[in-house]
């Protein structure tokens, strides 16, 4: 069934991609307007390789329209850069931001320009409906995810787990795998607990499976409290994996391990663990900091399902327009098209949520499978901590991050942790 669906989608993708490329030459999304001499400024977080790839995408737009696009890298401080420039009255024309919460607050502040009807139609056609919701604030579409990540991948060292290793089919099998590996003296699971966001990603994956997509949406909007029973169930399910004997050095060491170290602990020259969970960008860390090769000894399996549906947690960078010039509109529409995504897809390190992007375009098998899982998952939900007010969902040593760290450190304190988190959430959503 699943195999059939993939084939069908791939075939559809090939056909559609064929259409867009053949149509693309005659009528690319921005070619109906001549924009020669127009200058557009785009701000995003990307630097280095990612910046180079994105500039290739922009080059294509320049070639088609004659506009001149300047790229500004804001780095991790992009939100601060944007808010400063908005206050100063000189925002960039287009911004690509990682936090939907920021899109929300900028939209509420009136800093964003709604997407035009043509772009809206393009997104409806080429993206699954759920993606559109994340760019919508109070019923108006302000943006779309250009670059997505799949946060439901579990990476393992094939050399350590042996040739006859079969990825666990579900959560019980996953726990059983951890148990058998630890029974023979190993500590299989590397957890990067010094960074709270790795732990919130764990929770989100489990919660989406145990509570379902509707509850997930409610919790993200704080329509149900953190003391809700579904949260406790998800935490306790997760707690089966967060056992001290499964983690190298136990709980205290896990809380001292940063994300990059948690990957190196598995794929480094002196491995301490065998399995690490995080998003697709683990592949980047493996390539950069270890001698393992993604696709050969560094492999992944999808996050083990607790229920019976496949689900994926995603994150991503959302394109928004800050000015209403025709050139801005044209660029935003261009970026929404599969044509723009294809350019970066080929260069690697990029996953597009656009369904018309051809899976064959991805440079390697691993990326293709990650993209396939993401685009075709039954349930896709955005990273919950990104949907929350930043004071709750993205502050080092506070809020959601801190709660997960506290739980990893001492699961017996769960009721207290959840009631504290609920109190903080109440205050944070009230300020929003």
């Amino acid at each position, binding site marked *: 069934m699943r195999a059939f669906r993939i084939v069908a989608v791939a075939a559809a993708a090939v056909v559609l991609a064929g259409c867009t490329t053949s149509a693309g030459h005659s009528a690319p999304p921005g070619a109906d307007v001549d924009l020669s001499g127009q200058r557009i400024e785009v701000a995003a977080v990307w630097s280095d390789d990612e910046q180079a790839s994105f500039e290739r995408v922009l080059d294509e737009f320049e070639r088609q329209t004659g506009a001149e696009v300047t790229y500004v890298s804001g780095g991790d401080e992009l*939100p601060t850069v944007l*808010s400063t420039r908005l206050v100063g009255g000189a925002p960039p024309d287009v911004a690509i931001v990682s936090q939907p919460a920021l899109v929300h607050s900028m939209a509420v502040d009136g800093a964003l320009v709604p997407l035009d009807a043509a772009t809206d139609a393009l997104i409806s056609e080429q993206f699954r409906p759920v993606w559109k919701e994340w760019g919508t604030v109070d019923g108006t579409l302000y943006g779309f995810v250009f670059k997505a990540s799949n946060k439901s991948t579990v990476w393992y060292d094939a050399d350590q787990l042996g040739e006859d290793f079969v990825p666990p089919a579900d959560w019980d099998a996953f726990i059983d795998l951890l148990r058998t590996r630890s*029974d*023979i*003296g190993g500590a299989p699971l590397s957890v990067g607990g010094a960074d709270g966001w790795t732990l919130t990603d764990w929770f989100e994956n489990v919660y989406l499976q145990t509570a379902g997509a509707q509850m997930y949406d409610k919790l993200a909007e704080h329509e149900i409290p953190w003391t809700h029973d579904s949260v406790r169930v998800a935490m306790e399910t997760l707690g089966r994996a967060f056992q001290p*004997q499964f983690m190298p050095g136990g709980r205290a060491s896990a809380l001292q391990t*940063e994300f990059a170290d948690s990957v190196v602990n598995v794929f480094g020259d*002196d491995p301490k663990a065998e399995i690490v969970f995080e998003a697709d960008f683990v592949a980047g860390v493996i390539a950069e900091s270890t001698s393992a090769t993604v696709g050969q000894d560094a492999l992944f399996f999808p996050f083990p399902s607790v229920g019976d549906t496949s689900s994926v947690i995603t994150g991503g960078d959302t394109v928004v327009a800050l000015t209403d010039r025709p050139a801005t509109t044209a660029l935003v529409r261009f970026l929404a098209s599969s044509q723009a995504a294809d350019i970066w897809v080929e260069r690697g390190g990029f996953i597009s949520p656009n369904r018309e992007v051809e899976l064959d375009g991805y440079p390697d098998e691993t990326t293709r499978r990650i993209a396939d899982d993401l685009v075709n998952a039954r349930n896709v939900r955005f990273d919950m901590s990104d949907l929350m007010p930043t*004071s709750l969902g993205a502050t*080092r040593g506070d809020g959601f991050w801190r709660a997960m760290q506290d739980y990893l450190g001492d699961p017996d304190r769960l009721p207290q942790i959840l009631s504290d988190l609920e109190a903080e959430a109440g205050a944070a959503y009230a300020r929003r």
Partner: protein
Amino acid sequence: MPTPPAPTPSASSAPAARAAGASETGRRTGALSGGSPRLALLFLTPALVLLLVFLVYPTAYTLVRSLFDARGDEFVGLDNYATAFTDDRTLVALRNNVIWVVVAPSLVTSIGLVLAVLIERVRWATAFRLVMFMPLAISLVASGIIFRLVYDEDPDRGLVNAVAVSVHDAFSQASPYPGVRPREGGGLVAQPDGAMVTTARFGPDAVLALPLTGYDPATLPQQASAAVPAEPGLGVRGLVWLDVGGADDRPGQLDADERGVPGVAVEVLSGGRVVATATTGDDGRFTAPDLPAGDYALRLPAHNFAEPFRGLTWLGPALITPVIISAWLWVMAGFAMTLIAAGLAAIPRDAQEAARVDGATEWQVFRRVTVPLLSPVLVVVLVTLVINVLKVFDLVFVIAPGSAQEEANVLALQMWQVSFGSGGGDQGLGSALAVLLFLLVAPAMVFNVRRFKGDRS
């Protein structure tokens, strides 16, 4: 009274001191030369403009901003201050700032004083001073990264734990089976101290089977042989075996190819007291000799299974603030030493000589002569360090891992996180924290400025 050399004012007090100097110079010029006030104004204007633009305006704006909400368009009065004083994080930050102010400057001044006095007497004094001063030339962020590594929990990376582990291992022996734990439901439970105790009580002729797990069967000692269930007989008899690596992997069951664990110490307890001991053989069997009738429990003591010592979690919530203070101490000790050494060079030697002639010991000379003579310098160093401590930010941000950041938090860091941290924040609350920090620094700054004025007149 000897004039201590004007210490380099810290960054935050420098403009203030300069401003004080500037206005004073202006006043004197007017009074002494009777020159035109217009000329004075001309010379003053650049300084005044800079002062207004870069100090007065931002300060005033911060004050005003702290009375508005996150977006900056609604007046909320003192709400931000109320939030600041009811927020746990801010209170922890405030508490840590108090710890810093109480501990760090006095510690650094004392160390600087001792170093200055001692180094004065060695031959290569200048070389020593240079080395001691060097940490100050490294940026605080870089120092933070260095100390993050020094205190890393993994003894393969962290220097402190590497030393702790080698010292520990030199004095105590490693356990034969580190990390072994009882098989769940196998009749044994782990105690908090690491020992394992049987859940059930048994009589004097019991036969026990105790499965263990969590150990690689390949690393069992060579002589370990296939596990054999104990035969009933006289005394408590039993089998301690490694319940993994068998042909079938049935948890809690003795499977073919599973081996005994040799050399495990076994204690038979009666009412909490050890009444008999035994050691397992190569096949994992043990026999505790005849026991009188009664209820017994069995314990496998912790020394069989203790995990190797891995050092302390320096960067955990408990120790994080002392650890960061130690890093700051490393950076600032040279600074204090240099200033104090300069002061030392300026104090009259005859007082010390006279004391020595009168028969004072070196300690008495130091305690009763040198320190009192140096006290003006010491006070200036201390106050400068207090100002420096209140704005500590980078060391905390870099050294504390995310899981301990809340415990390590200080006001300057909290202010930054609230205002700008991850995704644009609440600059109203941030401004309120900035004002709070300003109020805390102000007394120290006023004191220092007064001091400079006093020195000059």
